């Protein structure tokens, strides 16, 4: 039998081996980070980095005051930016609805064939940023608003469809059985039992995505897809810093405006 003195005198949360293992894990993590840091800074010119505060002071002094007279040339791109976001969201949502119904486990026509395809569409659309979509579309169909609208739409499909199919999978099944019991056709079941239950999620997601899309469409012009980013690119290329600061201010104002609008819409609908 164990003597009472054989037991540890002090309480310890982790045993010796556990502590050793967690210490080793932390050590290897730190080693990995240091290694990555060195690899990353392989080509960094430290002269530029140490010079950054001077650069910062220099650029800030050039940025201020903003060239307010430039504003009259910004109204049209701002309107374009809002159009890209709104039309892109609308187009994306229209395409996301069928994808969501095909991806949801309880509404998909075929779990084996259709569902994986729909899930792949969602994953592909989600993992590629709208700026990359814009880059591709500008190369394919030329610069302009249309490329921006389609880029925003393609990126929105994955986001909206993912949140919607999760909502569809979580619906209350009693309503579905009730409507099925009346002898409704599959489309009628969708219309009367499923759609009313996911409507709040749908509206909320759409408004949320619109808000994100406004932010994203402000930079699409950097690759030539229209909107205020185009003016930003021009101003940056000509080193016209007073214009750049004015563009930043108007982007900030647009983002705040879109946040206000989406908060109002959410309150009104949900």
């Amino acid at each position: 039998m164990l003597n009472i003195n054989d037991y540890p005198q002090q309480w310890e949360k982790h045993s010796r081996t556990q502590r050793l293992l967690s210490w080793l894990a932390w050590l290897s993590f730190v080693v990995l980070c240091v290694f990555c840091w060195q690899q990353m800074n392989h080509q960094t010119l430290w002269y530029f980095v140490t010079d950054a505060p001077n650069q910062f002071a220099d650029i800030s002094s050039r940025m201020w005051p903003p060239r307010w007279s430039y504003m009259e040339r910004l109204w049209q791109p701002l309107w374009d930016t809002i159009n890209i976001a709104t039309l892109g969201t609308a187009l994306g949502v229209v395409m996301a609805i069928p994808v969501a119904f095909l991806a949801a486990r309880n509404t998909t026509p075929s779990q084996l064939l259709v569902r994986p395809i729909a899930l792949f569409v969602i994953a592909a659309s989600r993992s590629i940023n709208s700026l990359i979509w814009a880059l591709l579309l500008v190369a394919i169909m030329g610069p302009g608003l249309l490329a921006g609208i389609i880029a925003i739409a393609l990126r929105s499909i994955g986001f909206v469809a993912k949140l919607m199919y999760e909502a569809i999978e979580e619906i209350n099944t009693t309503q579905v059985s009730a409507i099925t019991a009346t002898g409704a056709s599959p489309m009628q079941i969708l219309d009367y039992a499923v759609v009313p239950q996911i409507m709040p999620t749908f509206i909320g997601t759409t408004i949320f995505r619109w808000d994100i899309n406004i932010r994203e469409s402000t930079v699409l012009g950097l690759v030539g897809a229209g909107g205020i980013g185009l003016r930003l690119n021009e101003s940056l290329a000509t080193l016209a810093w007073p214009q750049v600061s004015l563009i930043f201010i108007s982007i900030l104002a647009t983002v705040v405006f879109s946040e206000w609008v989406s908060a109002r819409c959410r309150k009104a609908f949900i």
Partner: protein
Amino acid sequence: MQSASDYPTTWRKPPLISTPSIRYGLWLLAAVYLFFAFDSVEVNWQRVWEGGERGWRFVQAFLNPDFTSRWSNIVDGIYESLTMTLCATVAGVILSIPFGLGSARNLAPTPVYLFCRSFIAIARSFQEIIIAILCVALFGFGAFAGFVTLTFATIGFLAKLFAEEIEEIDPASLTAMRATGANWLQQVNYAVQPQVMPRLIGLSLYRLDINFRESAVIGIVGAGGIGATLNTAMDRYEYDSAAAILLVIILLVMLAEFASGQIRKRIH
């Protein structure tokens, strides 16, 4: 008394918006907006039509992507993206902890709270790309600018969520620690940290995911990573290489999402 025939024989779903004037007014507003929006969108249909052929070439390139001819560039780009992502996430997490503590209402004094909250608000309202442009102007081209961009964006994202998490902790243990006479650091270590740790790890992993995705984009403005490789491939019209890069990005993003999902499931 009403006879049976007086009742309606069919039932219709009640509309979403009950007031008819608002219901039709919204449709009218939408129609007017669409008219003006489409009116201002100028589309060069001939150019789009010509683009159809290029689009088809791109689809074909996607079906047989060319991994080989630019493989070393792709590996370099991915490598740079991954190292940048890890460094930026670690630095961002470390820096976002003081900002998160500083912007929690129940821990920080008011001046600190206001300062941290306004910093977070600024960090969150600008797109990563815009921050990247400024960082490239400040630090020169390359991965270091990308690192700073991602770190900055990570602080804005994580500090806000940390602060919300800290504000929602059970105050009982905090009161208990205060009653023992613990100083501020001890309060944080013994009352706050154990409660928020699982969520902190989960959010950090989520941000690792986002940072990798973003690292693929900020290369377009010169901040290093796989985005730069992709931009070069597109500029040279090498659609098959571009398709290969996109497929690699999609694969890595899906892998990262799966891995971080698995780890998060284990922690919770």
